[in-house]
């Protein structure tokens, strides 16, 4: 019970990035086990991975899989999930939208080069006209410092993660969204987040050709 959570994944962002952000924002220390192919096979064979997939997080005596289940558990445990089921529904709706955009970005790194331009154009269009627009409108509608319930939640953390991710793709995309920029600054200044954003933290760098090769090798595709 006193042990730190242990995160099992390869040494890169992928689908574990959101979990790192959330734990870091909650001020929770955690350990990491970076996988190579042999480790993945071992975890599969000893039944540690319910659906033969990572991410997997060992926490509170459980081996959790499925990114959303992991994130929801951590958000609930550390009070980052609103005060009632209605706030939770809004937070879920927002984070599901973010997950849809994030999915497009994750896939971008691993699709064939000839498809990348079109995919990148789609990501930019959706970011601007669908996702960032929606979150800017939400912020404008209530004028509060956080997306839901006037207090910090999983939705704010996930959004800021996404803002940094998108900035890495195209710094101009956030230009027409002043409230999102303000939220990014505000959340980035929270002590736990600030620490996570500094060099030497457990935050991973963006994928590059080398890390994609590693991913392909470990997951065999």
């Amino acid at each position, binding site marked *: 019970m006193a042990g730190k959570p242990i995160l099992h994944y390869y040494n890169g962002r992928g689908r574990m990035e959101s979990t790192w952000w959330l734990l870091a924002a909650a001020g929770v220390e955690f350990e990491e086990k970076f996988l190579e192919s042999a480790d993945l096979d071992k975890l599969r064979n000893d039944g540690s991975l319910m659906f033969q997939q990572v991410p997997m997080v060992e926490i509170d005596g459980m081996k959790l899989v499925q990114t959303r289940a992991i994130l929801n558990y951590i958000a609930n445990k550390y009070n980052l999930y609103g005060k009632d089921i209605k706030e939770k*529904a809004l937070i879920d*709706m927002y984070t599901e939208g973010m997950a849809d955009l994030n999915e497009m970005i994750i896939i971008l790194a691993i699709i064939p080069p000839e498809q990348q331009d079109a995919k990148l154009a789609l990501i930019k269009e959706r970011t601007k006209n*669908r996702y960032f627009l929606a979150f800017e409108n939400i912020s404008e509608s209530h004028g509060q410092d956080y997306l839901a319930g006037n207090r910090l939640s999983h939705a704010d953390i996930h959004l800021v993660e996404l803002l940094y991710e998108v900035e890495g793709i195209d710094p101009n995309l956030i230009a027409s969204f002043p409230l999102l920029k303000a939220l990014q600054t505000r959340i980035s200044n929270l002590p736990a987040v600030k620490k996570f954003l500094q060099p030497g933290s457990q935050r991973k760098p963006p994928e590059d050709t080398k890390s994609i090769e590693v991913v392909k090798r470990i997951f065999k595709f």
Partner: protein
Amino acid sequence: MAAKPKLYYFPGRGRMESIRWLLAAAGVEFEEELFETREQYEKVQKDGRLLFGQVPLVEIDGMALTQTRAILSYLAAKYDFYGKDLKERVRIDMYTDGTLDLMFPIMASPFQPPKEKEEGLASAVKKAKTRYFPVYEKILKNHGEDFLVGNKFSWADIQLLEAILMVEEMNASVLSDFPLLKAFKARISSIPTIKKFLQPGSQRKQPPDSHYVELVKNILQI
């Protein structure tokens, strides 16, 4: 506050079906607006109720909820299908996320070119038999209880039944190696609200046919 939930979607299963299952299981009556034309769909978009411009949309308790999982989690919590504590909840989340991972490619397949469609469906059946169904069979075997989590009917059971029936529509003998899942299927199907939903005349939708695929493609202009 006594208003019925209202569902906005195309006249078929798609991503709304799991929501229909959950409401039906809870014995909750609901209304539906089923899009037959692009104009109907555009009107809902223009009204500003679709946060990301997409359906499913469910109007419930004064909210315009979109995003399938957000809607499902809300309903599960509201109708007491989400376990008794956080540890049961996370198990339900893991199991339901697993079954959604299984079902989503099947839902997407009618909209793909014939070769991809066939490969997608074959892959889904294989994953059901080798990755997903063995897990649920083992869970049932390990605790010997009637339901997946906490000895109580939950969202996880409803969704697993939906997934089983969906895969069986493509491969009738998919449960042949899973005796506990067979018994589970019979047991959950006979719960009164579920039984009612499985009968003709309920709001359960038909599997997608070419007419439905054309309709959706026209409306979404894809």
